[in-house]
């Protein structure tokens, strides 16, 4: 049995969601636009799902736009906003955004002739509020800062950022990529202070391929995918009814999750590793990160080698960020928090709904074995 500590990459499908998906496939799912009973049946499932999600986020059903996932939601938020915004001006993001925001904002700004402003973070990965003060003025059209970081887990002060932005640039749209944070943060409060928010089902125990952009009704954006005008003209394409229902189920299940249990497990993992392995570094303090994510630096060990041995011993974790060719390259996030060191492995351990105490205990043993094995062999070579 493998020990799965890679929930931040994809959280395994929750049994309740899986059962729901299977139940739908026992009957034909019609196009919800169909003018017949089966079509109306699909429409009811879709409406119902939208309503459930809305209620979890303290939103109105009309404020939920289904998409194919986090990346599309981010693209829709950024391109959709800039398409309608006043000409010129600037786009503001943080230094540690996921590439789905980083690259999108860069391209969107470039194509529409705007400046990209990048807010720096402190050594814990927290966006510096004084920099928001300096970087925001009335020319800022959109601010997109993540709710929590995908690599090191740092929670960003979205509420404070939003306050500053509202004061200095009342017309600016505030978006947050909550793909990593939705599981762990107060999503109602988060949506209350922003204009738009991206979420993705597969980080929450739902399937890959469905997500949503939550958007306040008062905020107007243009679509990026054109066609039949589904999702109130904002996202064309036949609705993924089963995906929507699965996302709704995954979001609903969050309410019942006890994140304090996860926090306890993470602390046990962290303490266990600190006790059993010499010279490992917690990349950021535990309490600045979400309960499900623990990031460590392991000096004297190559990331790829540690990952290989962990893989062999059945422990699934992530190291660095995987680039297109599959090899590891220094991550912009680790560089931003000054955590890139020579011959040092950077390992992300992420927990979720399926993580158990037994898994954590076994993980501690296997990780410490792999690290000491590699350190012992550090001089092996030609």
């Amino acid at each position, binding site marked *: 049995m493998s020990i799965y500590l890679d929930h931040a990459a994809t959280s395994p499908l929750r049994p309740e969601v899986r059962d729901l998906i299977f139940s739908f496939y026992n009957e034909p799912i019609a196009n919800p636009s169909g003018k017949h009973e089966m079509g109306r049946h699909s429409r009811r499932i879709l409406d119902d799902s939208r309503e459930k999600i809305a209620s979890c986020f303290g939103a109105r059903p009309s404020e939920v736009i289904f998409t194919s996932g986090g990346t599309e939601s981010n693209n829709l938020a950024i391109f959709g906003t800039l398409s309608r915004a006043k000409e010129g001006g600037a786009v503001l993001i943080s230094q540690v955004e996921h590439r789905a925001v980083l690259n999108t904002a860069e391209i969107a700004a470039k194509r529409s002739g705007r400046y990209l402003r990048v807010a720096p973070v402190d050594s814990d990965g927290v966006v510096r509020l004084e920099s928001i003060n300096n970087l925001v003025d009335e020319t800022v059209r959109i601010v997109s800062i993540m709710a929590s970081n995908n690599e090191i887990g740092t929670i960003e002060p979205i509420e404070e950022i939003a306050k500053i932005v509202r004061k200095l640039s009342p017309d600016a749209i505030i978006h947050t990529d909550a793909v990593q944070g939705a599981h762990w943060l107060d999503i109602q409060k988060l949506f209350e202070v922003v204009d738009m928010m991206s979420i993705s089902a597969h980080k929450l125990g739902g399937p890959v391929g469905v997500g949503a952009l939550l958007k306040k009704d008062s905020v107007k954006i243009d679509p990026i995918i054109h066609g039949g005008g589904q999702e109130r003209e904002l996202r064309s394409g036949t609705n993924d009814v089963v995906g929507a229902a699965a996302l709704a189920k995954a979001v609903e299940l969050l309410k019942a999750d006890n994140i304090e249990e996860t926090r306890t497990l993470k602390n046990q993992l962290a303490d266990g590793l600190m006790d059993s392995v010499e010279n490992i570094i917690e990349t950021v303090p535990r309490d600045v990160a979400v309960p499900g994510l623990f990031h460590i630096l392991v000096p004297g060990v*190559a990331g*790829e*080698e540690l990952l*290989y*041995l962990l893989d*062999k011993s059945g422990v699934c974790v992530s190291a660095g960020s995987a680039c*297109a*060719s*599959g*090899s*590891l*390259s220094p991550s912009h996030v680790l560089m931003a928090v000054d955590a890139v060191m020579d011959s040092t492995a950077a390992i992300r351990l992420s927990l979720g709904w399926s993580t158990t105490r037994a898994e954590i205990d076994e993980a501690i043993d296997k990780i410490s074995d792999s690290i000491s094995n*590699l350190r012992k*062999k*550090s001089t*092996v*070579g*030609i």
Partner: protein
Amino acid sequence: MKIAVGMSGGVDSSVAAHLLKEEGHEVVGVTLKLWGGLSDQGCCSVSDVEDARYVANKLGIEHHVWGFTEEFNQYVVDPYVYSHSIGETPNPCIECNKKIKFDVMVSRALRLGFDAVATGHYAIKFKDQDGKFILRRSIDRKKDQSYVLSGIKPAALEYCIFPLGSLRKEEVRKIANSLGFITADKPDSQDICFILATGGREQFLKERIELHSAKVIDDETEEVIGEVEALEMITVGQRRFLGEKGDGRIRYALKVDNENQSVRVGPIEKLMDNFIELRQTFFYDVTPKPGDKVRVQTSAHGDPKEAVWLGESRIELLEPIRRVAVGQTVAIYDGEDGEDVLGSGMVSKCDKSL
């Protein structure tokens, strides 16, 4: 044995992996990510990694990507640029074999519990009755790659496996075709993997070092007969792009004189040498004694030449050869039939006398 097979995404390494698996070894495919910049082909592009992965899937073996971009820069690219900057002619493929594939990669493989590293090179390596490790030319003479492997450190030879050494290229393609590998018809890689076909060597160097113009001096008359734009681009032995005088005489680059910013040119006779002096010379298990007959090869597909090992890194050729540029590798083979690689060195001087 547990073997890491370097899979470049080409046909040769695909078949090498297959053959080892057939022999019953535990085989893991590894593609190296070496070059972080732009490239046309070679070991580093996303499509080559994908090709290797498809083949690994077909073989039912695991596939991993090992990133050695920093090491590649440090041990291959930077020295390549430096070598050009001082007027030498480097061979980065040999350096990559020596420092990356059969050092950095082998070291990692050993740390991770592998017994050996295999590649799709055409060469034979075996252990003789005395327990010595021998590196030998492949059966397919046209494809023989013992020259580019001749820099492999003696300590690494033990851990190398070359499954294609006794096969012909046609047979390798046939095997790949019969197994339906998508790499079966891929052309052989030719050029330096980190240099783009569009900009070439000059563009690559220009982005990294200052290129200097140089006078072209006729070695016989001491007359300045032209100018070249980049001294760093000139290789001893070349006869084109030397700012021809237009008198119909063919002149070759005899010497790249970095100090005096000049290229000395002259007729072919002046280019023919009898002596080579090497640096960084080493031998495997058999070291020739001064006076021993050896054969030397000075380029990847050049003919081996008869020579005498003089000791102290010096070689005398029995027949004169065209001057070998400083920085090039000389592979030294045994004097009997020239089959076995005894060792190698890098040219520090090639002249009519030493």
